């Protein structure tokens, strides 16, 4: 097991260690231990299924932060052909935390957008860890308007801790840039699919996340604010980050129940990083299916359905 193992995965780590030891023993003693190894591997699989079916919301948060999960660019590179990346917002600059462009995807010409966290330290720094600036949201909008003019569907990959919280972002109108995207996406006259592959960080995620279909990967999270922020504000109520992660309902299952998202894609056992190929395959399959459905719908109906989808979110008490 790689070093990205988290505390709750220790039992799995133990099994894997014992299997490795047996294998070594087997080869050094020239003894056939395959029966023992096989038995252990069975137990390991069982253990994995148990552990990963019980991942808590807080453990999911940690998985998003600490695991080398496939990034937006991994999905885009693997799934799309004839990719042309486009840059810049035509106002201020280009935002490397958001990749976007044109591509062919299984019979559809699409505009893709993806929040990109980067893989190694150098790349992460260059990508600002996936924290977007206003120019990123404006670049996204420019490409979406381009998609609209030429009737091309839009696919957005969501994976960001938050919108960039720095001074420059504020000076260039972070709030206004995000708000404008929400408004424009609500009425964009082409299908939009948004897929949360890792971290759906609040308004920063929503800024490219208003869509006809919102899909989440099994262990992805989508959250109104970081659990730590919540626990910091509510520490008097005994709110630890782990408790906050539960209270905020940030898991795919809970968000499907709440009617916030439309679909969950099952991850390879243990997470997308354990088998990126399988994860990418499943994402491709879901995108293709949804794209075929959405592109067949008349635009007026599509927009009406999209409006009603968001219009119906919320619970109130009418005391009249």
């Amino acid at each position, binding site marked *: 097991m790689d070093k990205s193992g988290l505390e709750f995965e220790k039992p799995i780590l133990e099994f894997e260690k014992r299997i490795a030891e047996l294998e070594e023993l087997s080869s050094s003693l020239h003894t056939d231990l395959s029966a023992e190894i096989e038995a252990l591997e069975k137990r390991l699989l069982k253990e994995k299924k148990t552990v990963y079916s019980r991942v808590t919301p807080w453990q999911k948060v940690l998985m998003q932060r600490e695991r080398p999960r496939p990034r937006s660019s991994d999905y885009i590179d693997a799934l799309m052909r004839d990719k042309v990346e486009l840059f810049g917002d035509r106002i201020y600059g280009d935002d490397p935390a958001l990749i976007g462009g044109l591509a062919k995807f299984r019979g559809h010409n699409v505009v893709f957008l993806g929040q990109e966290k980067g893989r190694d330290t150098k790349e992460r720094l260059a990508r600002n860890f996936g924290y977007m600036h206003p120019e990123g949201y404006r670049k996204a909008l420019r490409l979406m308007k381009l998609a609209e003019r030429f009737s091309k569907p839009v696919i957005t990959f969501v994976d960001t801790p938050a919108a960039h919280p720095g001074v420059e972002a504020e000076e260039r109108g972070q709030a206004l840039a995000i708000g404008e995207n929400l408004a424009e996406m609500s009425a964009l006259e082409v299908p939009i699919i948004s897929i949360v592959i890792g971290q759906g960080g609040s308004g920063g995620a929503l800024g490219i996340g208003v869509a006809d279909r919102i899909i989440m990967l099994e262990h992805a999270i*989508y959250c109104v604010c970081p659990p730590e922020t919540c626990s910091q504000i509510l520490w008097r109520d005994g709110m630890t980050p782990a408790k906050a992660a539960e209270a905020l*309902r940030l898991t795919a299952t809970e968000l499907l129940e709440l009617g916030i998202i439309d679909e969950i894609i099952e991850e390879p056992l243990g997470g997308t990083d354990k088998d990126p190929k399988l994860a990418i395959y499943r994402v491709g399959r879901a995108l293709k299916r949804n794209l075929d459905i959405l592109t067949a719908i008349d635009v007026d109906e599509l927009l009406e359905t999209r409006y009603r989808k968001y219009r119906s979110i919320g619970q109130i008490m009418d005391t009249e």
Partner: protein
Amino acid sequence: MSSGSIDLLQTGDSMMESARKDGCPGCGAVVSEEELARTHEVCPRCNHHYPMGAQERIELIVDAGTFAEYDAELESVNLLNFPQYEEKLTKDKRLTGLKEAAVTGEGLIGGYPTTIGITDYRFRMGTMASVVGEKITRCIERAIEKKLPAVIFSSSGGGARMQEGMVSLMQMAKTSAACMKLRKAGLLYVNVLSLQSFAGVMASFAGLGDIIIAEPGTLIGFTGARGRSSIKQELPEGFQTAEFMIERGMIDMIVQRKDLKAVLADLLDFFS
């Protein structure tokens, strides 16, 4: 979230109290309650604009006797069973006399009919959750039905309310979608920012106006001090104030509270 604005919330009314006793936070002058009432909670010495609740705002802006409230009966439910949420709602209801953080309705401003929405900083910091999202959306939808403009005031220091989780966050999309319909219907939309306007509220219905007005000294932005605490960065002078934001082209004008009604009436006249 801005810890600056959280402080304002926690001391909201007590700030008024202490201003009366210990002096204005802007200049230290002790101003009598009668004088503050006459100036609509603006310091007559230094022009410091005190926070203003929804009811006072209606009295200041809407022609007397013309305000008809929409959806006054809507109340929040603890849909996620979030710890302590009911208690906090109860406390804020008692404190403000309001049922939620938004008050909406229609009335005349300087004789011009318009729909009106106001978020009140005293109720959960003016944060948006199901009821606020629903009231603002209904208000805008009524503007479209009745072919009226919409004027929405924000004093929201927080964005989406944590206690309603992602349901809150999605109210950003919901209200923004309604604003887009208003825009497409060719109707005027004006935002007035007062005291503070941040995060999910500023990044949705409070920032989508055709015209964005701020009162002097209003703090405006996406991320407040709390969200910024992780990155150590020196803040420029006057950071996120209306005066700072207008220099950077993010709002249309700064209007003194005493002039606000006349400016709104002029805008409604021009676009009528």
